[in-house]
């Protein structure tokens, strides 16, 4: 397997520079790959696939034919980020989440940012994720989105941009941890002679962050992970995190709220008080008394308990107000407004369809733009202009005119690539990067994140539900 035969493209490649040479931090990896025959790599890959099957690392795909539990697609070739660059990213991510949390608390209270004219009132009015039952709440440490998964992409100019902030129920961290476990189990020699930063103990930090939210003064808070159940696409992750933290994995039917607004879980010895809920259920489903009346995933009375301060919920209900592709475009302004700092990480340039001038531009340039709905996740419901047909673009134009608040557009990014094992060859495939940021009493960022890769040639859709795979992510010290 020769890195020299890797095809050159016009995209920025994370491992190979424009002359076809390995970047400084990828030299050791390429030297190692050069020693491997195609058969060696094939054997390694088969071992990886077998390990994934046995370990039962899976995710669920929803389809017409029922829900399928699929093995997690993993590519052997890691993505490498130089440590110096990572330090900048780490600082930028913390800055961003700090501002987002200040924004959420402000929006549900004084709304200074609207009054000062920095954030337009009409954007707020159109937000489907603004939850009136959260008004007037002040939370411990000012933290609402305690767990944030921020998607980063590198453009053709080599700059790392923030694509979106996932503040509702971001997933993927368990796969990040499993990916590292797989790499160490199957390619241990790669770790022996390089300075690859270890993944910090994310689950310990997550536990400590959740414990710091406990409303009671107790040594041993009862922490639960609230899952929609075994058929949810991220169920593997819910059970993984509960297992790693020694927390209870509960479903809505296991919990109830008593007359004193205390949340309890149903145990074989009767009801037991719950202090902190790490919910992996969308906030509109957590309490049928307040939101969707027919939700069976939630717990009647949960909002009451939360408002009374008897239980902590992470992420707090209402955090989704800042997880909206329109609100996203104002994050740099939030950073300036609340922190009086310049944003460290840039946003992708964006056009808001609710602004008349922007909308006209978008409609005139649909064949160059990626148009996204404000509130969908998982890569659903978006238009990739340059790849869409004339009819698809016309159809989308109608939707934009009908519901301008619901759409925004960005230039089609020339997403960076990483060499990926396709058959017996290394081929460039587009990637993004999702680090996870925690905010409770303290703040922390994972060392690296989950690198997702679009396995189909030329595709930029990295979601696992749509044929994406993943890679281990290395933060490597230069010059060691």
């Amino acid at each position, binding site marked *: 397997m020769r890195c020299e035969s890797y095809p050159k493209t016009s995209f920025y490649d994370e491992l190979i520079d424009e002359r076809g040479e390995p970047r400084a931090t990828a030299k050791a990896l390429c030297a190692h790959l050069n020693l491997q025959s195609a058969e060696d790599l094939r054997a390694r890959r088969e071992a990886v696939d077998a390990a994934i*099957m*046995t*370990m*039962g690392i899976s995710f669920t795909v929803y389809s017409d034919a029922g829900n399928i539990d699929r093995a997690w697609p993993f590519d052997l070739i890691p993505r490498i980020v130089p440590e110096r660059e990572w330090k900048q990213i780490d600082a930028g991510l913390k800055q961003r989440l700090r501002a987002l949390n200040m924004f959420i608390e402000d929006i549900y209270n004084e709304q200074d940012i609207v009054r000062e004219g920095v954030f337009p009132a009409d954007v707020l009015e159109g937000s489907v994720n603004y939850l009136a039952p959260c008004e007037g709440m002040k939370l411990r440490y000012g933290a609402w989105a305690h767990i944030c998964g921020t998607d980063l992409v590198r453009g053709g100019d080599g700059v790392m941009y923030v694509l979106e902030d996932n503040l509702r129920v971001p997933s993927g961290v368990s796969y990040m941890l499993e990916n590292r476990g797989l790499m160490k189990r199957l390619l241990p020699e790669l770790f022996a002679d390089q300075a690859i930063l270890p993944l910090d103990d994310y689950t310990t930090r997550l536990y400590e962050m959740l414990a710091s939210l406990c409303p009671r003064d107790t040594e041993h808070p009862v922490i639960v*992970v609230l899952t929609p159940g*075994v058929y949810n696409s991220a*169920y593997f992750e819910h*059970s*993984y995190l*509960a*297992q790693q933290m020694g*927390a*209870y*994995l*509960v*479903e809505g*039917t*296991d919990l109830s709220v008593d007359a004193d607004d205390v949340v309890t*879980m*149903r*145990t*074989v*010895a*009767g009801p037991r008080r719950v202090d902190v809920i790490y919910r992996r259920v969308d906030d509109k489903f957590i309490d049928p008394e307040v939101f969707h009346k027919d939700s069976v995933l939630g717990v009647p009375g949960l909002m009451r308990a939360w408002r009374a301060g008897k239980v902590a919920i992470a992420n707090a209900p209402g955090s989704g107000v800042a997880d909206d592709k329109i609100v996203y475009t104002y994050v740099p302004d939030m950073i300036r407004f609340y922190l009086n700092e310049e944003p460290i990480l840039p946003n992708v340039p964006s056009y808001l369809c609710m602004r008349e001038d922007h909308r006209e531009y978008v409609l005139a340039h649909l064949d160059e733009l990626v148009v996204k709905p404000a509130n969908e996740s998982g890569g659903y419901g978006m238009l990739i202009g340059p790849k869409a047909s004339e009819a698809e673009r016309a159809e989308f134009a109608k939707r934009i005119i009908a519901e301008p608040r619901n759409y925004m557009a960005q230039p089609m990014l020339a997403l960076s690539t990483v060499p990926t094992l396709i058959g017996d060859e290394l081929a460039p495939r587009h990637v993004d990067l999702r680090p996870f940021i925690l905010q409770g009493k303290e703040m922390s960022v994972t060392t690296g994140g989950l690198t997702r890769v679009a396995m189909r040639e030329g595709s930029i859709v990295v979601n696992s539900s749509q044929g994406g795979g993943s890679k281990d992510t290395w933060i490597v010290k230069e010059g060691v």
Partner: protein
Amino acid sequence: MLARVAENLYWMGRQLERAENTARLVNATTQVLLDSPTGIELGWDELTRVMGFPSTQGVTEADVVHLFLLDQDNPGSIVVSLRQARENARSLREVLPREAWEQLNSLHLRAPALMTAALERSRRDAALREVVDARLLLAGLLNETMSHDAAFQFLRLGALLERADMTSRIVDISSAVACTAPGGLGMETTWISILKALSGFQMYRRHKNVRISPKAVVSFLFSDPRFPRAIRYCLENIESILAELPDPADPLRSARQTARLLAKVEHSMELNDGLPVLIDEIQQRLCELHNAIHEHYFAKPKPEAIEPAQTQNMAEA
């Protein structure tokens, strides 16, 4: 311990035990028939009967083996039991040791190919033994790497209850085959095969008798307090597990009633049809014990009855 989690553990225990015992049972039946004179097709329809299927005349070995090993519509077939155990384990990954999950997942993934191989007589013994061995490895992993906490006890509770039930069924078929065998065929051979299927042959010889008599074998498999596959052993362990659980009076009473029936075994064998009747009764009691455990630890509290006036209000709303 969450009630839902306790229930899933209990069922996982039952399903694993079911798979193991079905493998033992089919293997034992095959062994017995290998010892029979050619042309005799005894046993297979008995097997379906004791496992609770309507007895069908003229079922062939291939039909029955397929039914117990591979049939997707038979909730007790080995592949289905293992799949359900694995589905339960998937919802229990936060309480099970990781190695145990991997072992079960791997067994589940291998099961269809193994059971297909077992359709052939020549490969059956090896394939069924592999299932039994894999299950025992899993039991060992759980016993040696999992805290013996409430979660572990619910897993064990399910396994012991299922085992007691399966042992009663295995004795049922053995006595039926032994009784109907023409010319006193292999009375002894049949019981030896059954003891071997339950890994009980050596233990029987050491603790009971060198000679094989139906009465002694049945009383060993029913009433021995030290042999882990004997019904008494299972029930006594169920009692001590229950005693440690919160508020166990009802299920405990049910377990003791079941155990009391075991004293009647030797007497029942002197009566015509006494043993099958007793076995039915034991299975019935085990079923009641299951219901008592379910009601007590797993079932949701029933919603309080709504007053008529309230019902009307709700209808208006």
